[in-house]
Every structure is written in structure tokens, then in C-alpha cells.
């Protein structure tokens, strides 16, 4: 396992800059997740670390060694592709051992490595099958197995769960978390657009937008202290309610607490609101989602914005009911540039 350091890394395709000066420090053994909306450059960044994309400027170092000019195979990384990229005409065993065999490793050694990886991933019984005879989840495991046999310093995952159905995605997410500890805390870099995957898997999350890093931190840090409006809106499900305010007042003129003085926006998580006859927020319920363990209530404010709150199961009214809510949790405050104002 190795650390990964990115220093002022940029990437341009002709005139189009897709990565605009990124600095990231990933510690040995860390599970780091790059998260962001589509087109934010997260996959490009991963591919630059892998060596599949050239680096326009800046430095990428793996284990303290600058790797900008090295071939992908010499960087000590292994990648799990979104489409798995298994060789369709080879058996699972050959798929996993192919790279090693082509590089002249003795057959017996390759077999031992493949068997060990198959044991870790519990796919021993699949070794003789071809990829088309496997389910999505099994293919996923084979792709991970192919990475494991190379014994890499860094594992790279490019949206590995996005081709799986919802149930399998949750199960595989757990498997990946277990795998990380099983592989003696191998360094892993994982790209996803799903903030739930990011929150559940990561030791460190890097939130990207438009080729910039918006914030780096532990999952709960990002959840509790988002650095700006974008991170506040991106991390957390359902998303944070963001309300534009002026002169310390809500759009309908309701005065806010003193902490919101000078704010451009305030942010309230759905679970930071509770029914309160004297509360500052009012509205009319538009939709109620009853999930069993909670009711999510969508309501329309007098200024026409749709906000979300969370009720204990079975306690929410129905669509058309008027509600009034008070703030019971943390109120996030952002200045007029969208940057967080520390409480």
C-alpha cells in the first residue's frame, strides 16, 4: 500500500480545461472517494492517477515516487472499470491471471495468486466459467479479483457499482468495505456520483465540481460542516434545504436568529426541522413519502420554494395540510459568495 499525492494537477483537451489545479493528499491505507456530479472530472482524475490519461501539468506521486511519465502497469495501481472490462473469451481464471501470465510470471505462482483472490472473493466455483455465464455481481467480483492478483499499491475503482441493481449495490457496497479491511487496509480510490456510496465507504471524501476540489474531509465533517453551498446541497439525502435570505430575514420577511446576520443563504437539514406553532417556517404540504421508519414531507413555502422535512413515522399530515416548523438542529449559514460562515 502507498500514499497518493496530487499537486496542482491540471488536464486540458485542447482549449477545454477539465481539471483545473487539483491538490489532494491520500494517506497510506485510506479509502478515498471522489464524488461529484457527472462531468465534474472525477473519472478523468482517476484515469490520470492510473496513467490512462496524460497529465497536462502538475505532479502525481504514488508512494512518494513521481509517476507522471510512467506506464500504467509500472505505477503499482490496479483498476476496476465501470463496465468491468473482462475479456469475454477467457475463463474467469484466465481473466484474473492474464496480466501476470503475459508478463512472464510462472504458471504455478499465478495459479496460487488467482486461487487466493478467488478465496477472498468467494468465487472459487466460478473459475472455469466465461464472463457471459456470470451475473452482474459475479462479474464485479471477477473484476476486483483481477485487481487483487496484481497485488497493487493502490486500488482504483471507477463507478464499480453503477451497473448493479439497487439491492446488489447495497450488498456489494458492504463487501467492498469488508474487502478494504481484509486486504490489510489497502489504499483505495473510488469514484462515484452517488453521495450515499461516498458517505458509507469513505475515510476521506473529495467533492469535485467543474474540475475543482470543492472540499476534502471525513464524511461526517462534510455532512456537519460543508464548506460551501455546493457541498451542503450535494452531501446528505434528502438534500439540505437552502434558502436565500436578505438582511437577516426570510423571503417572506420573517426575522432569523442573530447568527444569520449578513448571510446570503441559510441551510437547514430536513431533520433539523420540527413542528412548532411559533416556528419560523410555514407552508402547505405537497407530497408525503412514508418510508416506514420515517415520513418525508415536502412542503411549499409562501415564497414558492419546495422544502423537505422529516417526521417520525405516521405523524405527518396529508397533502394540502398547512404546517409550521421551527429549527431544532444546526442552522448552516453561507455568505453572499456561497462560502460557509463558521458558527
Amino acid at each position, binding site marked *: 500500500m502507498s500514499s497518493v499525492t496530487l499537486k496542482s494537477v491540471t488536464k486540458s483537451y485542447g482549449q477545454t480545461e477539465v481539471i483545473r489545479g487539483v491538490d489532494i493528499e491520500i494517506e497510506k491505507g485510506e479509502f478515498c472517494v471522489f464524488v461529484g456530479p457527472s462531468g465534474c472530472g472525477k473519472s478523468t482524475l482517476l484515469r490520470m492517477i*492510473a*496513467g*490512462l490519461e496524460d497529465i497536462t501539468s502538475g505532479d502525481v506521486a504514488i508512494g512518494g515516487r513521481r509517476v507522471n511519465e510512467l*506506464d*500504467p*502497469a*509500472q505505477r503499482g*495501481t*490496479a*483498476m476496476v*472499470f*465501470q*463496465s468491468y*472490462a*473482462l*475479456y*469475454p*473469451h477467457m475463463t474467469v481464471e484466465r481473466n484474473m491471471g*492474464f*496480466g*501476470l501470465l*503475459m*508478463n512472464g510470471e510462472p504458471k504455478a505462482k499465478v495459479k496460487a495468486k488467482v486461487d487466493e483472490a478467488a478465496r477472498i472473493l468467494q468465487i472459487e466455483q466460478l473459475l472455469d466459467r466465461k464472463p457471459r455465464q456470470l451475473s452482474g455481481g459475479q462479474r464485479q467480483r471477477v473484476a476486483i479479483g*483481477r485487481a487483487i492478483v*496484481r497485488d497493487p499499491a493502490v486500488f482504483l475503482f471507477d463507478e464499480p457499482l453503477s451497473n448493479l441493481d439497487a439491492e446488489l449495490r447495497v450488498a456489494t457496497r458492504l463487501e467492498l468495505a469488508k474487502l478494504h479491511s481484509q486486504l490489510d487496509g489497502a489504499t483505495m480510490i473510488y469514484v462515484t456520483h452517488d453521495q450515499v456510496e461516498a458517505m458509507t465507504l469513505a475515510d476521506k471524501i473529495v467533492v469535485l465540481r467543474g474540475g475543482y476540489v470543492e472540499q476534502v474531509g471525513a464524511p461526517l465533517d462534510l455532512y456537519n460542516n460543508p464548506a460551501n453551498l455546493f457541498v451542503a446541497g450535494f452531501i446528505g439525502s434528502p438534500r439540505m434545504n437552502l434558502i436565500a435570505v436578505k438582511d437577516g430575514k426570510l423571503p417572506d420577511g420573517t426575522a432569523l436568529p442573530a447568527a444569520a446576520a449578513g448571510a446570503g443563504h441559510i441551510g437547514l437539514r430536513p431533520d433539523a426541522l420540527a413542528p412548532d406553532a411559533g416556528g419560523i417556517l410555514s407552508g402547505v404540504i405537497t407530497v408525503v413519502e412514508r418510508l416506514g421508519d420515517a415520513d418525508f414531507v415536502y412542503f411549499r413555502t409562501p415564497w414558492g420554494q419546495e422544502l423537505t422535512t422529516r417526521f417520525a413515522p405516521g405523524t405527518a399530515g396529508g397533502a394540502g395540510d398547512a404546517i409550521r416548523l421551527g429549527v431544532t438542529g444546526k442552522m448552516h449559514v453561507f455568505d453572499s459568495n456561497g462560502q460557509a460562515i463558521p458558527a
Partner: protein
Amino acid sequence: MADVMTHKDPFFTPRRRRQLVSVLLAALSAIWVYPLVWMIFASFKPNSELFSNPGMIPDAPTVENYVRAWREANISTYFFNTLFVTVGSVVITSIASALMGYVLGRRPVPGRFAIMGLMVFTLFIPQGYTIIPVFELLTKLGLGQSLWGLMLATCGHSIVVFTLLFAGYFTQMPKELEEACRMDGVGPVKTFVYVMLPLAKPIIVTVVVMQSLQAWNDFLLPLVITLANPAMRTLSVGIYSFKGENFVDWGGMTAASTIAIVPIILLFLFLQRYFIDGLAGAVKG
């Protein structure tokens, strides 16, 4: 009463319609295949019977035509000449067009479309225009009077089509396969040999079948190249020599023709499944 009328089975049920179509198609196939079958039967008739009995079944079947063709008319030599030219040209064409198709389909080649355009342009030039320069080229290379030269020249016919077939097929392959190879430290040559080429099996089979047909049945090119050297003739040219100035040995010709078509039919029977896959894949792409 009206109710009963509406429930009456129509004459053309789907099953009957299928049967009718099958019968029609079978009749069409029979007409289409008749000359070929007639020729095979005729090859068992003595020359004297060929025109006296225009029906299909011979009165007195004989293999004499085959013996004569194989021994006296040198069909045995021509057969092995053709085999040599065909196998050689299939090997060369398959390897060359797969390599070119891979590069054109997947590698960033400067002027790729110009190259492909030029290649397609050559398809529109009739063979007759190029045959003299080809002959001259072979002569200059010292191959004008050899089967090697004929083999090489035979490769030229369809290599453009095959290259485009391969290029089209390789273009569709996901780039992640190559990237996975790069991550595994597998070089471009091994990637091509172990990953790309096995996946292009349907196209390889298509090329093998089409080039075999082409080389086996080619007439004009071997005729010109072997004009001065009858020992180098291929089957198609050899069969033509049954037509003498005063007499045509139709029996020998039908026997030789039957000898000539058997290998091609066998090849097609063995490979037809892949062959159709390859063509269907090319159209789909």
C-alpha cells in the same frame, strides 16, 4: 347463426400459410440448385450419353470422366496449384487485413479517413485495368512465372473489403478492454494477438470463406499469369482447357468442375455458422 359464421376457421391459418411458403421456397431452391445438381450427375455420364440423354439420371454411371480428368488432363496438378494459391492467399490476406483493420479501427492514425477513402476508391476500378501492371510488378519482382506470384496477386482482390470489415468490427469494441490490458502491463502486440484477434473470430471466418471462394474460383488473373506456363494453371483455367478447338470434352469438364466445387462446399458447410455471424455483425455495426 351470424355468431357461427364469424367463428369459422379461415382457410389460411398461420400454420397453413407457413407450409405454403415453405413449399414455394423449396420449389424456388430446386430451380436454383438444378444446374449444379445436373452438372454433378452429368459428370457420371460418358461423353456419348451427355447429349443423347438430357435427363438428370445417367443410364450407365461411370467414373471414367474423373479418372481421365485427374490423370490425363492434369487436374490433379491444377488442384494442388489451386490449393497452394488459395491457402497461401487466405493466410496472407487474413493476417494483413486484420492488422490493417486494427490500426485503422482503433489507433489514432493521421489521415485515417483519407486512407480509407482511397482504399474504397480502388474497389471501383475493374480488374481488367490493373491486370497488366500487376503482371509487370510480379515480373519485376521475379515472381512473374511462379505460384508465389500468383498467390500474392490473388491477395489483392478483396483485401480492401476485408480491411474495412475488420476496421468496422474493431471500432465497436469497448476501449476498456485495451485499457485493462494496459493496466495489466500487456503490450500492444500481445493485446492484439490474445484479446482483440480472438474476439474478431466471426470476421476472421468471413474473410477465410470469402477469400477462399475468391482465390479458388478466380479465372482472369491465373489465366494471364499462367499463359506461358501451363504447369502452373489453377483449376478454373485448367477446366477451361477441356474446350479444344474441334472438340469439347464435356464429361471431363463436368468431372473437373465437380472436383473443383467440393472443397469450397465443404469449407462453407463447416464454417457457415460463423460466416453468417460475421456478416450479420458487420451489417449490425
